[in-house]
Protein backbone atom coordinates (compact mmCIF):
# COMPACT_ATOMS: atom_id res chain seq x y z
CA UNK A 1 0.00 0.00 0.00
CA UNK A 2 1.39 3.33 -1.00
CA UNK A 3 1.89 6.22 1.40
CA UNK A 4 -1.08 8.16 0.01
CA UNK A 5 -3.35 5.11 0.31
CA UNK A 6 -2.25 4.61 3.89
CA UNK A 7 -2.92 8.27 4.63
CA UNK A 8 -6.31 8.03 2.97
CA UNK A 9 -7.41 5.01 4.95
CA UNK A 10 -6.24 6.37 8.28
CA UNK A 11 -6.88 10.11 8.10
CA UNK A 12 -8.70 11.42 5.05
CA UNK A 13 -11.47 8.88 5.01
CA UNK A 14 -13.37 10.14 8.07
CA UNK A 15 -14.54 13.74 8.17
CA UNK A 16 -13.54 14.08 11.83
CA UNK A 17 -9.92 13.13 11.31
CA UNK A 18 -9.85 15.00 8.01
CA UNK A 19 -10.97 18.25 9.69
CA UNK A 20 -8.52 17.67 12.53
CA UNK A 21 -5.71 17.14 10.03
CA UNK A 22 -6.64 20.37 8.25
CA UNK A 23 -6.61 22.35 11.51
CA UNK A 24 -3.29 20.97 12.71
CA UNK A 25 -1.92 21.35 9.21
CA UNK A 26 -3.02 24.98 9.17
CA UNK A 27 -1.22 25.55 12.50
CA UNK A 28 2.11 24.29 11.23
CA UNK A 29 1.59 25.84 7.80
CA UNK A 30 1.02 29.24 9.40
CA UNK A 31 4.24 28.98 11.38
CA UNK A 32 6.26 27.84 8.39
CA UNK A 33 4.70 30.28 5.94
CA UNK A 34 5.17 33.25 8.29
CA UNK A 35 8.78 32.35 8.96
CA UNK A 36 9.51 31.85 5.26
CA UNK A 37 7.95 35.14 4.17
CA UNK A 38 9.61 36.99 7.03
CA UNK A 39 12.97 35.56 6.00
CA UNK A 40 12.35 36.48 2.36
CA UNK A 41 11.40 40.03 3.34
CA UNK A 42 14.51 40.56 5.42
CA UNK A 43 16.65 39.02 2.65
CA UNK A 44 15.24 41.42 0.06
CA UNK A 45 15.57 44.44 2.38
CA UNK A 46 18.95 43.49 3.77
CA UNK A 47 20.82 46.58 4.94
CA UNK A 48 17.73 48.74 5.14
CA UNK A 49 16.10 47.31 8.23
CA UNK A 50 16.54 48.75 11.71
CA UNK A 51 18.20 45.61 12.99
CA UNK A 52 20.89 46.04 10.31
CA UNK A 53 21.60 49.73 10.92
CA UNK A 54 20.94 49.83 14.64
CA UNK A 55 24.66 49.75 15.53
CA UNK A 56 25.17 53.04 13.66
CA UNK A 57 22.91 54.91 16.05
CA UNK A 58 22.73 53.05 19.34
CA UNK A 59 25.73 53.32 21.65
CA UNK A 60 27.82 50.19 21.77
CA UNK A 61 26.93 48.07 24.74
Amino acid at each position, binding site marked *: *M*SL*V*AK*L*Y*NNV*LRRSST*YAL*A*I*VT*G*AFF*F*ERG*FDMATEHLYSEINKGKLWKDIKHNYAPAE
Partner: protein
Amino acid sequence: MLSFVARSANVSSATVAATQTVANGTKALCPAVSIQIERTLVPPAPQKLTTNSLTASLPKTPIRAAASLGGAIQVRFAHTDIQVPDFSAYRRSSVKDSTADTRSSAASRQGFSYLIVGSGAVGGAYAAKSLVGEFVSSMSASADVLALAKIEVKLNDIPEGKNVTFKWRGKPLFIRHRTAAEIDAESNVDLSSLRDPQLDSDRAQRPEWLVLLGVCTHLGCVPIANSGDFGGYYCPCHGSHYDASGRIRKGPAPLNLEIPIHTFVDENTLVVG
Protein backbone atom coordinates in the same frame (compact mmCIF):
# COMPACT_ATOMS: atom_id res chain seq x y z
CA MET B 1 -75.99 -9.12 -41.53
CA LEU B 2 -79.47 -9.39 -40.08
CA SER B 3 -78.59 -7.09 -37.36
CA PHE B 4 -77.18 -4.67 -39.87
CA VAL B 5 -80.50 -4.64 -41.70
CA ALA B 6 -82.46 -4.33 -38.48
CA ARG B 7 -80.37 -1.43 -37.31
CA SER B 8 -80.58 0.37 -40.56
CA ALA B 9 -84.34 -0.03 -40.81
CA ASN B 10 -84.87 3.67 -41.12
CA VAL B 11 -82.49 3.83 -44.06
CA SER B 12 -83.63 0.52 -45.60
CA SER B 13 -85.04 2.24 -48.63
CA ALA B 14 -81.65 3.53 -49.51
CA THR B 15 -79.88 0.26 -48.84
CA VAL B 16 -82.15 -2.11 -50.66
CA ALA B 17 -79.65 -2.77 -53.35
CA ALA B 18 -76.97 -3.62 -50.86
CA THR B 19 -79.13 -5.99 -48.87
CA GLN B 20 -80.11 -7.75 -51.94
CA THR B 21 -76.54 -8.16 -53.02
CA VAL B 22 -75.39 -9.80 -49.76
CA ALA B 23 -78.54 -11.81 -49.21
CA ASN B 24 -76.74 -14.94 -50.36
CA GLY B 25 -74.83 -16.11 -47.32
CA THR B 26 -72.59 -18.50 -49.20
CA LYS B 27 -71.04 -15.78 -51.19
CA ALA B 28 -68.17 -13.73 -49.95
CA LEU B 29 -69.06 -10.31 -48.62
CA CYS B 30 -67.06 -8.65 -51.27
CA PRO B 31 -65.01 -9.97 -54.12
CA ALA B 32 -61.23 -10.22 -53.62
CA VAL B 33 -59.61 -7.15 -54.97
CA SER B 34 -55.91 -6.61 -55.41
CA ILE B 35 -55.03 -3.24 -53.94
CA GLN B 36 -52.23 -1.26 -55.42
CA ILE B 37 -50.23 0.08 -52.46
CA GLU B 38 -48.76 3.36 -53.34
CA ARG B 39 -45.04 3.28 -52.64
CA THR B 40 -43.60 6.26 -50.92
CA LEU B 41 -41.23 7.99 -53.18
CA VAL B 42 -38.01 9.01 -51.42
CA PRO B 43 -36.01 11.65 -53.19
CA PRO B 44 -32.54 10.44 -54.01
CA ALA B 45 -29.78 11.51 -51.63
CA PRO B 46 -28.45 14.76 -52.99
CA GLN B 47 -24.85 15.05 -53.88
CA LYS B 48 -23.28 17.09 -51.14
CA LEU B 49 -21.44 19.65 -53.11
CA THR B 50 -22.76 22.96 -51.75
CA THR B 51 -24.16 24.17 -48.43
CA ASN B 52 -27.61 24.03 -49.99
CA SER B 53 -27.35 20.35 -50.89
CA LEU B 54 -25.77 19.62 -47.50
CA THR B 55 -28.78 21.24 -45.79
CA ALA B 56 -31.14 19.28 -48.01
CA SER B 57 -29.62 16.03 -46.77
CA LEU B 58 -30.33 16.91 -43.11
CA PRO B 59 -33.49 15.59 -41.49
CA LYS B 60 -36.01 18.45 -41.18
CA THR B 61 -39.17 16.66 -40.11
CA PRO B 62 -39.75 14.56 -37.00
CA ILE B 63 -38.15 11.18 -37.38
CA ARG B 64 -40.67 8.32 -37.71
CA ALA B 65 -39.79 4.71 -37.21
CA ALA B 66 -40.41 2.68 -40.28
CA ALA B 67 -40.14 -1.03 -40.51
CA SER B 68 -40.49 -3.51 -43.20
CA LEU B 69 -39.30 -7.03 -43.76
CA GLY B 70 -36.57 -6.24 -46.17
CA GLY B 71 -35.71 -2.65 -45.36
CA ALA B 72 -33.67 -1.00 -42.66
CA ILE B 73 -35.50 -0.65 -39.35
CA GLN B 74 -33.58 2.29 -37.99
CA VAL B 75 -32.26 5.56 -39.11
CA ARG B 76 -28.76 6.32 -37.97
CA PHE B 77 -27.42 9.79 -38.03
CA ALA B 78 -24.27 9.00 -36.08
CA HIS B 79 -21.29 8.64 -38.28
CA THR B 80 -18.97 5.78 -37.67
CA ASP B 81 -16.08 7.79 -38.98
CA ILE B 82 -16.18 10.09 -35.90
CA GLN B 83 -13.46 8.90 -33.56
CA VAL B 84 -13.99 8.68 -29.82
CA PRO B 85 -11.72 11.32 -28.26
CA ASP B 86 -8.65 10.07 -26.48
CA PHE B 87 -8.90 11.01 -22.81
CA SER B 88 -5.87 9.06 -21.72
CA ALA B 89 -3.97 12.29 -21.10
CA TYR B 90 -6.51 13.10 -18.38
CA ARG B 91 -6.69 9.64 -16.91
CA ARG B 92 -4.65 8.48 -13.98
CA SER B 93 -2.05 5.95 -14.94
CA SER B 94 -3.57 3.26 -12.72
CA VAL B 95 -6.87 3.30 -14.64
CA LYS B 96 -5.59 3.89 -18.15
CA ASP B 97 -6.05 0.25 -18.95
CA SER B 98 -9.80 -0.42 -19.12
CA THR B 99 -9.33 -4.00 -18.00
CA ALA B 100 -7.29 -3.10 -14.92
CA ASP B 101 -8.70 -3.57 -11.40
CA THR B 102 -9.77 -0.11 -10.17
CA ARG B 103 -10.60 -1.11 -6.64
CA SER B 104 -7.03 -1.83 -5.61
CA SER B 105 -5.89 1.66 -6.64
CA ALA B 106 -9.00 3.47 -5.31
CA ALA B 107 -7.43 4.45 -1.98
CA SER B 108 -4.42 6.10 -3.55
CA ARG B 109 -6.49 7.91 -6.19
CA GLN B 110 -9.06 9.21 -3.70
CA GLY B 111 -6.30 9.97 -1.23
CA PHE B 112 -4.64 12.18 -3.80
CA SER B 113 -7.89 14.07 -4.49
CA TYR B 114 -8.53 14.57 -0.79
CA LEU B 115 -4.96 15.74 -0.26
CA ILE B 116 -5.36 18.42 -2.92
CA VAL B 117 -8.65 19.60 -1.40
CA GLY B 118 -7.18 19.39 2.10
CA SER B 119 -4.14 21.50 1.27
CA GLY B 120 -6.49 24.05 -0.26
CA ALA B 121 -8.44 24.04 2.98
CA VAL B 122 -5.23 24.55 4.97
CA GLY B 123 -4.36 27.58 2.87
CA GLY B 124 -7.91 28.86 3.17
CA ALA B 125 -7.90 28.45 6.94
CA TYR B 126 -4.61 30.35 7.16
CA ALA B 127 -5.93 33.17 4.96
CA ALA B 128 -9.18 33.40 6.93
CA LYS B 129 -7.32 33.42 10.24
CA SER B 130 -4.96 36.21 9.13
CA LEU B 131 -7.87 38.22 7.75
CA VAL B 132 -9.84 37.99 11.00
CA GLY B 133 -6.70 38.68 13.02
CA GLU B 134 -5.99 41.76 10.94
CA PHE B 135 -9.46 43.18 11.47
CA VAL B 136 -9.57 42.38 15.17
CA SER B 137 -6.11 43.78 15.86
CA SER B 138 -7.09 47.02 14.12
CA MET B 139 -9.59 47.52 16.92
CA SER B 140 -7.00 47.20 19.69
CA ALA B 141 -5.23 50.18 21.23
CA SER B 142 -2.52 51.69 19.06
CA ALA B 143 1.10 51.95 20.13
CA ASP B 144 0.91 55.63 21.14
CA VAL B 145 -2.07 54.92 23.40
CA LEU B 146 -0.32 51.94 24.93
CA ALA B 147 2.78 54.05 25.52
CA LEU B 148 0.73 56.50 27.59
CA ALA B 149 -0.99 53.76 29.53
CA LYS B 150 1.98 53.25 31.83
CA ILE B 151 4.01 55.63 33.88
CA GLU B 152 7.35 54.94 35.49
CA VAL B 153 8.27 56.88 38.61
CA LYS B 154 11.70 57.16 40.23
CA LEU B 155 10.92 56.95 43.90
CA ASN B 156 14.18 58.28 45.32
CA ASP B 157 13.27 61.74 44.00
CA ILE B 158 10.34 61.93 46.41
CA PRO B 159 11.31 62.97 49.92
CA GLU B 160 9.62 61.51 52.96
CA GLY B 161 6.39 63.19 53.98
CA LYS B 162 5.83 64.65 50.52
CA ASN B 163 3.01 64.06 48.10
CA VAL B 164 3.83 64.26 44.38
CA THR B 165 1.25 64.57 41.60
CA PHE B 166 1.67 63.05 38.13
CA LYS B 167 -0.63 62.92 35.16
CA TRP B 168 -1.59 59.38 34.28
CA ARG B 169 -4.24 58.48 31.67
CA GLY B 170 -5.58 62.02 31.87
CA LYS B 171 -6.06 61.84 35.63
CA PRO B 172 -3.97 63.12 38.52
CA LEU B 173 -1.90 60.46 40.21
CA PHE B 174 -0.79 60.96 43.81
CA ILE B 175 2.32 59.27 45.13
CA ARG B 176 2.86 59.83 48.81
CA HIS B 177 5.99 58.98 50.69
CA ARG B 178 4.58 58.39 54.14
CA THR B 179 6.39 58.96 57.36
CA ALA B 180 6.69 56.28 60.03
CA ALA B 181 4.19 58.18 62.19
CA GLU B 182 1.59 58.17 59.42
CA ILE B 183 2.06 54.47 58.73
CA ASP B 184 1.68 53.71 62.40
CA ALA B 185 -1.46 55.85 62.73
CA GLU B 186 -3.17 54.41 59.64
CA SER B 187 -2.50 50.79 60.50
CA ASN B 188 -4.08 51.27 63.92
CA VAL B 189 -7.36 52.77 62.69
CA ASP B 190 -10.44 50.90 63.86
CA LEU B 191 -12.13 49.42 60.78
CA SER B 192 -15.60 49.79 62.31
CA SER B 193 -15.18 53.54 62.37
CA LEU B 194 -14.69 53.70 58.59
CA ARG B 195 -17.37 54.38 55.99
CA ASP B 196 -15.64 52.19 53.42
CA PRO B 197 -13.72 49.73 55.59
CA GLN B 198 -10.36 48.77 54.13
CA LEU B 199 -7.12 47.77 55.81
CA ASP B 200 -4.15 50.05 55.28
CA SER B 201 -2.07 46.97 54.38
CA ASP B 202 -4.54 46.19 51.58
CA ARG B 203 -4.20 49.67 50.14
CA ALA B 204 -0.44 50.11 50.25
CA GLN B 205 1.78 47.34 48.91
CA ARG B 206 4.74 48.90 50.66
CA PRO B 207 3.69 50.82 53.76
CA GLU B 208 5.95 53.83 53.01
CA TRP B 209 4.50 54.33 49.52
CA LEU B 210 0.88 55.20 48.86
CA VAL B 211 -0.27 55.38 45.23
CA LEU B 212 -3.67 57.00 44.66
CA LEU B 213 -5.83 58.41 41.91
CA GLY B 214 -6.36 62.06 42.85
CA VAL B 215 -10.05 62.07 42.01
CA CYS B 216 -12.54 62.64 44.80
CA THR B 217 -15.07 59.80 44.85
CA HIS B 218 -17.84 62.29 45.50
CA LEU B 219 -17.99 64.42 42.34
CA GLY B 220 -14.52 64.12 40.88
CA CYS B 221 -12.64 67.14 42.21
CA VAL B 222 -8.92 66.92 42.88
CA PRO B 223 -8.26 66.77 46.62
CA ILE B 224 -5.55 68.84 48.25
CA ALA B 225 -2.76 66.87 49.84
CA ASN B 226 -1.59 67.18 53.45
CA SER B 227 -4.69 68.98 54.61
CA GLY B 228 -8.00 68.18 56.20
CA ASP B 229 -8.91 66.89 59.64
CA PHE B 230 -7.14 63.56 59.23
CA GLY B 231 -3.81 64.70 57.84
CA GLY B 232 -4.29 63.11 54.42
CA TYR B 233 -6.35 64.74 51.70
CA TYR B 234 -9.09 67.31 51.68
CA CYS B 235 -11.48 67.97 48.83
CA PRO B 236 -12.24 71.67 48.62
CA CYS B 237 -15.39 71.27 46.55
CA HIS B 238 -17.70 69.71 49.16
CA GLY B 239 -15.40 69.13 52.10
CA SER B 240 -14.53 65.44 52.03
CA HIS B 241 -11.72 64.48 54.39
CA TYR B 242 -9.43 61.56 53.58
CA ASP B 243 -6.77 60.13 55.85
CA ALA B 244 -3.14 59.41 54.98
CA SER B 245 -4.24 56.09 53.49
CA GLY B 246 -6.73 57.80 51.16
CA ARG B 247 -9.76 56.47 53.06
CA ILE B 248 -12.86 58.60 53.38
CA ARG B 249 -13.33 59.77 56.97
CA LYS B 250 -15.63 62.75 56.84
CA GLY B 251 -17.77 64.53 54.28
CA PRO B 252 -20.06 63.49 51.42
CA ALA B 253 -17.75 61.13 49.48
CA PRO B 254 -18.95 57.49 49.64
CA LEU B 255 -15.75 55.60 48.85
CA ASN B 256 -12.02 55.64 49.50
CA LEU B 257 -9.71 57.15 46.92
CA GLU B 258 -9.04 54.65 44.16
CA ILE B 259 -5.77 52.70 44.10
CA PRO B 260 -4.53 52.05 40.53
CA ILE B 261 -2.75 48.84 39.59
CA HIS B 262 0.91 49.41 40.34
CA THR B 263 4.05 47.35 40.77
CA PHE B 264 7.40 48.07 42.31
CA VAL B 265 9.89 46.99 39.67
CA ASP B 266 12.86 47.42 41.95
CA GLU B 267 13.77 49.33 45.10
CA ASN B 268 13.49 52.75 43.48
CA THR B 269 11.19 52.27 40.49
CA LEU B 270 7.43 52.22 40.50
CA VAL B 271 5.35 51.38 37.43
CA VAL B 272 1.70 52.43 37.44
CA GLY B 273 -0.62 50.84 34.87
